[in-house]
């Protein structure tokens, strides 16, 4: 496996449920070290795209490569961390401590019929610390707030030292106050630990300052570029024509000409 290859390469991907296409001819590249947001309305195929990338659905048409390897041959799943939409997959009454939940992130890495060693225990504690939940390590996860629970799931994804972290609408059900600190934490993971991030969201406003690349998806992929380009693109949609933003500096010059 070649580490200089893009983390994810999707080419000509089409997916249909029964007869209806949910995704059509998607081409997408996620470069190493980027922070990419996939934006689209409900039912736009975002989740399907994620499931395909995570190997939860089989590719019907087109190709997906992960770390340069065709997805059908890809085995190194512990390089990919996944944080799902909390509400979907989690029963808040489940009697498990934060420590136990984070430990479950090592299941694949430790391997079948093998047991946890001291180094794993240190890793778990380190992951919990990195999301700022050290004080809650032995609390049942159901006793935490929504934002804290989502941090537990980030820790669970981080504990196996992934190169790529995929997040599916991670801030659904998290109160506004905690959303910002949540994104700041993601930015830190991206910049300081060099983890490539793929974030699916319908709330681009909250993240457009942090992400480096944006993809807009609604069955077709209709925008793929860096976040600065995206802002221009978005504005021209709003205003109905191309917009060339002027800086204040520029305005000042114009005014000075007039006077």
């Amino acid at each position: 496996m070649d580490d200089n290859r893009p983390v994810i390469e999707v080419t000509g991907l089409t997916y249909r449920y029964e007869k209806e296409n949910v995704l059509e001819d998607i081409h997408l590249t996620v470069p190493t070290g980027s922070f990419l947001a996939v934006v689209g309305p409900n039912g736009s195929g975002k989740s399907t795209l994620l499931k395909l990338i995570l190997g939860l659905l089989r590719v019907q048409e087109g190709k997906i490569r992960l770390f340069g390897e065709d997805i059908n041959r890809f085995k190194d799943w512990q390089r990919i961390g996944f944080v799902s939409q909390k509400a979907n997959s989690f029963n808040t009454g489940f009697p498990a401590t934060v420590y136990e939940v984070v430990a479950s992130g090592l299941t694949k890495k430790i391997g079948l019929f093998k047991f946890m060693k001291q180094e794993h225990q240190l890793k778990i504690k380190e992951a919990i610390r990195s999301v700022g939940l050290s004080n809650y390590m032995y609390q049942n996860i159901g006793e935490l707030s929504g934002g804290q629970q989502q941090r537990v799931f980030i820790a669970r994804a981080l504990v196996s030292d992934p190169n790529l972290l995929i997040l599916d609408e991670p801030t659904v059900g998290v109160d506004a106050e905690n959303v910002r600190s949540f994104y700041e934490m993601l930015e830190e993971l991206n910049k300081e630990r060099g983890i490539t991030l793929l974030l699916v969201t319908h709330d681009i406003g909250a993240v457009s300052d942090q992400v480096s690349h944006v993809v807009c998806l609604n069955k077709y992929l209709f925008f793929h570029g860096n976040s600065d380009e995206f802002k221009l693109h978005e504005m021209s949609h709003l205003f109905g024509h191309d917009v060339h933003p002027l800086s204040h500096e520029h305005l000042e010059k114009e005014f000075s000409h007039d006077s």
Partner: protein
Amino acid sequence: MIHDLFQYEFLQNAFITGMIIGIIAPLLGVFIVVRRLSLIADALSHVTLAGIAASLLLEKKLLLVGLNPLYLGMTFSVVGALFIEKLRAVYKHFQELAIPIILSGGIGLAVIFISLADGFNTDLFSYLFGSVSAVSRADLYTILVISLFVVGIIFLLYKELFILSFDEEHAKASGIAVKRIHFIFIIMVALVIAASMRVVGILLVSSLMTLPVAASIRIAKGFKQTILYSVLLGEASVLGGLVLSYYIDLAPGGTIVMIAVLILIVTMFLKKLSFNKPVKNGVKS
């Protein structure tokens, strides 16, 4: 009682079997409850009944005297478990539908076997409600083997069973062989049900898998502690039930279950008391 316990083999069989069941039923029960599969245990116990009725029929009509009904009961239970999985795959959006289908199928089959045999003697009754005196040495050994198998598997696959119970989607995404682990799990459920019915009876089998767990969840911190408390409470119910039923001559199966219910009520009360205490560290509860 201690004196009798040394003297009578049937009492020894009953006690040792009870102690074993008191461990494995709640142990597996924790995984069943947190995966919201509690009713599967009920469905499978009714299928087990069909197997036992079939075995008794064979014994009566074909004079197969040496046949231990436990074996056919176990076979039916495992086959029933596989059917449930099949049905759950077919009715993806109505997965709970598998349970009434298998449950009524099991009873229907059992009733047919019973009528074909023109009724049985008290044997069948002892399977329905459990009977201490009916546990033979051969039963004890079979149950012991099943238990060692189940405890061994849970020990070896603990991580995988945990991740599957907590978050199936995450388990799949991490590349865990979810289907295979679930298959092993459902086979274990079928085996434990067949093993437990001797003591508590088919109609009460699921209670030993769920009641101690229901009580434990209310008081435990974390998953391992939930398992530990469930086993302790299960064991307490079995022991208490056997001793009590011995002294005041009650049906042991029913007594065991009622003690488990009592324990559950006490833990609910305890939890209420602890809720009145101030919340510490400002943690939301």
